[in-house]
């Protein structure tokens, strides 16, 4: 039986660009380039490795986002995923964590899955709770923050390195997995992969395809509101000295003055 893997990915503003908020206090996506969230590349990589080990597997990459988010799907397809689903709807603009997890869960159910794989967090919002929320909504085990993952005979196992302990986890499929940047270097798309990706199917779904109403998502349906976003004042220029033999001493003097010593 085929193993159906859904990888959730996010299209995020490039962290090296000038990221800022739009007038409605959502992320301004017009002034900065977007890309596949780096942490999601690890999820795609693990999906590819799990699929390689399985007799028969199919990888669907899924994203919720504006038109440009197709770029993130193309990148995942060029790495080797089989097909893609793009959930796109004007009413999704401004969705919060709760709304986004609702849309993703509905889309995952519609796509059909045995295994959902996500990155540990997005590189823009960085909350890292979507995988747990998907497990909660789908009613399946969460096997999250794994630095090693393996799927065999309908069972997923993995290692979760926490603050105080390293845990070996095990759950039966279907399940939701998230992987950290320690799970294994993500491959670069090959030229062949990039060419092949152009022919792979990308389905577009809107809210009606997922039986969702506009007021359940977007700014209107959000359970949180941002009242203000202020740019932090640039740090005032600090003191910079060149070490000419006394650098360590001078630094100690500064730290003592600040009462750190």
């Amino acid at each position, binding site marked *: 039986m085929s193993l159906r893997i859904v990888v959730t990915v996010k299209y995020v503003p490039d962290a090296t660009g000038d990221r800022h*908020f739009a007038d409605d206090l959502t992320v301004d996506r017009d002034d900065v380039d977007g890309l596949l969230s780096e942490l999601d590349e690890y999820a795609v990589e693990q999906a590819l490795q799990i699929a390689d080990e399985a007799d028969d597997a199919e990888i669907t990459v899924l994203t919720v986002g504006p038109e440009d988010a197709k770029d993130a799907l193309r990148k995942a397809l060029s790495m080797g995923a089989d097909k893609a689903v793009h959930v796109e709807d004007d009413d999704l603009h401004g969705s919060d964590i709760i709304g986004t997890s609702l849309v993703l869960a509905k889309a995952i159910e519609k796509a059909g899955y045995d295994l959902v794989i996500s990155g540990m967090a997005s590189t823009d919002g*960085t*909350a890292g709770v979507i995988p747990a929320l998907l497990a909660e909504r789908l009613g399946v085990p969460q096997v999250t923050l794994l630095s090693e993952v393996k799927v065999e005979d309908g069972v997923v196992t993995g290692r979760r390195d926490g603050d105080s302990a390293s845990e070996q986890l095990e759950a039966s499929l279907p399940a939701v997995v998230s992987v950290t940047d320690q799970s294994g270097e993500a491959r670069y798309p090959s030229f062949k992969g990039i060419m092949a990706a152009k022919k792979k199917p990308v389905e577009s779904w809107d809210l009606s395809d997922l039986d969702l109403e506009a007021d359940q998502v977007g700014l209107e349906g959000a359970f949180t509101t*941002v009242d*203000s976003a202020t740019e932090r004042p640039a740090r005032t220029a600090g003191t910079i000295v060149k070490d000419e033999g006394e*650098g*360590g001493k001078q*630094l100690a003097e500064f*730290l003592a003055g600040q009462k750190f010593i």
Partner: protein
Amino acid sequence: MAEVLVYVDHVDGAVRKPTLELLTLARRIGEPVALALGNGAAETAAVLAEHGAVKVLTADAPEFADYLVVPKVDALQAAYTAVSPAAVLVPSSAEGKEIAARLAVRIKSGIITDAVDLEAGDEGPVATQAAFAASYSTKSRITTGTPVITVKPNSAAVEAAPAAGTVEALSVSFSEQATGTKVVARTPREATGRPELTEAAIVVSGGRGVNGAENFHIIEALADSLGAAVGASRAAVDAGWYPHSNQVGQTGKSVSPQLYIASGISGAIQHRAGMQTSKTIVAINKDAEAPIFDLVDYGVVGDLFDVVPALTEEVKTRKG
């Protein structure tokens, strides 16, 4: 006064500092009721009471240790139902955020993660968060349901405020999902004797400039002279010089100490994302053009192999 449910992070009864910070913040919006789960839960009561908990709910069962996250969500939900709090506060650890998020869905509430400050507002608690590598500061509220908020370490100074701290056993019935993810083995992290990275008041980090695992003892020696935690940049971790658990940055841990000392770290955006909210920032780097110098309160352009040991000696001398 409204009650505020505070989830307690503890290790065998020893309460971790971020929970005491949470109790301090909780008192700004109501009367803290603490929930402590697992082995040693009842032993947390004294210190929680000393920091303002009017009540301490406790529960222990093998499920909390044997299965991942969900049994704790079941318990938090039971406490929520018993208390009907005005807000639920959880420490922003990886697990804390997962527990809080799942509770929010169950009780149909909004969630705010990684708050760095919290104050009472006319329409419920207002949370401050750092966005875009801490280049922005936002203020947010939860508009639907009971606010569920996770708060990062070092977001408030711990203040004592003795309260009753009456201990009550909480009865928890576990959901069908509770036993879905089994913890088949657990290896405690080796204790280094140093403070936990995310909680430390001072962090000393090393990067590419440290140039090898065998040189990290220079960074550790400075950290030990200051009673600090040791951090590492992604370059140092990827090179295998220091464990991933010590990585500071976007894909590692985010820290917000009183003092951050970056040695041999250039200050790429990914690193800055994890340390930019530090109160005082110091850098030592050979390259005068390194972007880290844009952030510093004090910078030394120089070879870390000269500057760091000299600093360590000077700290030791001054501390006597």
